[in-house]
């Protein structure tokens, strides 16, 4: 039972985080990242074992007999600091994106869209859409000398 409650909590945090991460809205993505990150931090805390005395020589906590694992807490601290820095950076990017495009959503990659629009037969970047006069990319062009392309 003592393990079940945090496990369910971790599962809930990470699933909510993943759900938010799949959004296109930047603020939601950031929130998702933070939620999932906190879920993972909780997971590390849990795998560090049961609670106990503070890991400082001579300090005891009421009724505890064992000492808590300091390593897990150290790792969480590092992870929290890192995610705080990244969150600040993402916020700055979000603001910049908003200033640039008045939108908070991740845009499509223009070049990617262009390439995927090329049909399978005309898979050639410099085929001008209506004008086939220039570069037909016939096989003989590969071994033609500059200025003597046979296909034109």
């Amino acid at each position: 039972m003592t393990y079940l409650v945090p496990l369910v909590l971790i599962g809930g945090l990470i699933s909510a985080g993943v759900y938010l991460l799949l959004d296109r809205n930047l603020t939601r993505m950031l929130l998702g990242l933070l939620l999932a990150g906190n879920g993972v931090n909780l997971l590390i805390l849990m795998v560090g074992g049961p609670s106990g005395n503070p890991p400082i020589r001579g300090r005891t906590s009421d009724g505890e007999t064992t000492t808590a694992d300091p390593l897990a807490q150290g790792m969480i601290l590092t992870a929290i600091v890192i995610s705080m820095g990244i969150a600040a950076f993402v916020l700055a990017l979000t603001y910049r994106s908003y200033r640039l495009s008045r939108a908070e959503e991740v845009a499509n990659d223009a070049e990617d869209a262009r390439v995927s629009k090329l049909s399978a037969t005309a898979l050639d970047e410099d085929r001008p859409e209506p004008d086939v006069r220039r570069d037909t990319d016939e096989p003989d062009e590969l071994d033609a000398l500059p200025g003597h392309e046979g296909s034109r």
Partner: protein
Amino acid sequence: MNGQVLAPLPVLIPTIAAALTLFAGRRPRLQRTIAFLALAAVVAVCAALLYYADRDGTIAVQVGGWGQSVSGMGPLGITLVVDRLSAMMLLVSAIVLLAVVFYAIGQGIRDGDEHQPVSIFLPTYLVLSAGVCTAFLAGDLFNLFVGFEVLLAASFVLLTIGASTERVRAGIAYVMVSMVSSLIFLIGIALIYAATGTLNMAELSVRLDGVPAGTRTALFAVLIVAFGIKAAVFPLSAWLPDSYPTAPAPVTAVFAGLLTKVGVYAIIRAHSLLFPGGAMDRIMLVAALLTMLVGIFGAIAQSDIKRLLSFTLVSHIGYMVFGISLSSALGMAGAIYYVAHHIVVQTTLFLVVGLIERQAGASTLQRLGGLAAASPLLALVFFVPALNLGGIPPFSGFIGKVALLEAGSQDGSVLAWMLVGGSVVTSLLTLYVMARVWTKAFWRPRADAPEGNLSAASPSALLNDTEDVAYADRDDVGRMPVGMLIPTGALIAVGLTLTVLAGPIFAYTERAADEVLDRGHYISAVLGEVR
């Protein structure tokens, strides 16, 4: 003076230099001097480390002396380990980092970046260098994670430098994907800690042997997913061609050369040190095959040279995963040699794209043409690494591929033979892609290019804020600064050295592979001779 003293320096020197360059932010010349000297010193240190690691065996340093303080617990503090593999990765990375910083400085001097707000470039670049070195030196999983985070945080800044619309868009996707991979890595760390109670890699490799096989495979799978995203292995590779091409040329070059290889290095460590036995080999072989083929087919469809090279980068990661997942000494040696070759050649090609942008004011094949006539030197500088990437003998790409093919045929299973076939096809298609760039950008007249009349108005240094103008009206594009040519030439020379000295270097990678697969050296170097 021995290896123990030198081992922390590849992290310390760039970190201190990063702080100094920040202080010198208003004095560009001083800033450049510090950055260049620091990275030159790192090259020297890494060369010495390689010598010591090869002569005396694995070097382990317990940072702060937190060594065997508690009996039976393993080292408590941070452990830095230099064996032959990490020494080689460190040296190659240091050379590439030095060449690229030279290139960036050369470009900056020529294009006057004193007038642009990019004094942040060199400090961030040095932090990136420190992160890369930390990852290669890390002797425990959490320190590896920290190394990854340091280099990722620096790469976020470098990728979005100038914060134009395109870079912000690419940067957001890159940040999100990287952070998700870090989270998965962190989950893996938590689960491994739960299963074994330690994160020191040497201690782990001893304790994980006692963990049930199913649990071991599950832990391995979590780590492979995390590292697979960083290394851009196929189903997890879509982020790379999307984000890399938007960055400035030197940044893309160093990302392409180093960041994915840090992921590959982590896969090597996880596969051989932590989870030997090849529980995931079949899945990894299939992933390697798909990485090669999907990557290179993607490259065929591209018209922007930077995007095209990003796809070939993804494709060639498949070769390394192929060599690793054969779980044989020759496969591992081939993979290590291939990593070194690929770091150098891929960085060189991206630097050459920077030169092409400089010379012709564009990097897309729709606008390029006639470069061979315009600049025979540029043609030569492109031609050699392009053939090298395509695997034409006698270049190093050929040697690496032959070793991998030999290892695959030695393995003899159906899947391995399919991989051998896939490698050959990928190699030929790489050559086709390179030939396509060559015929379009270098051989045909510029007038034949569909948009050959357009060009960038001025050379873009770090910020890409130039607009399009008619080719004839451009302002001072066209000459290649010596400061950009020298490092490119130097990296080509390093690539050729991998060919000329292929015998000794391949013998070294074989020794490195034996050491990696044996595990005993690593464990006894870190934990002492007790076990």
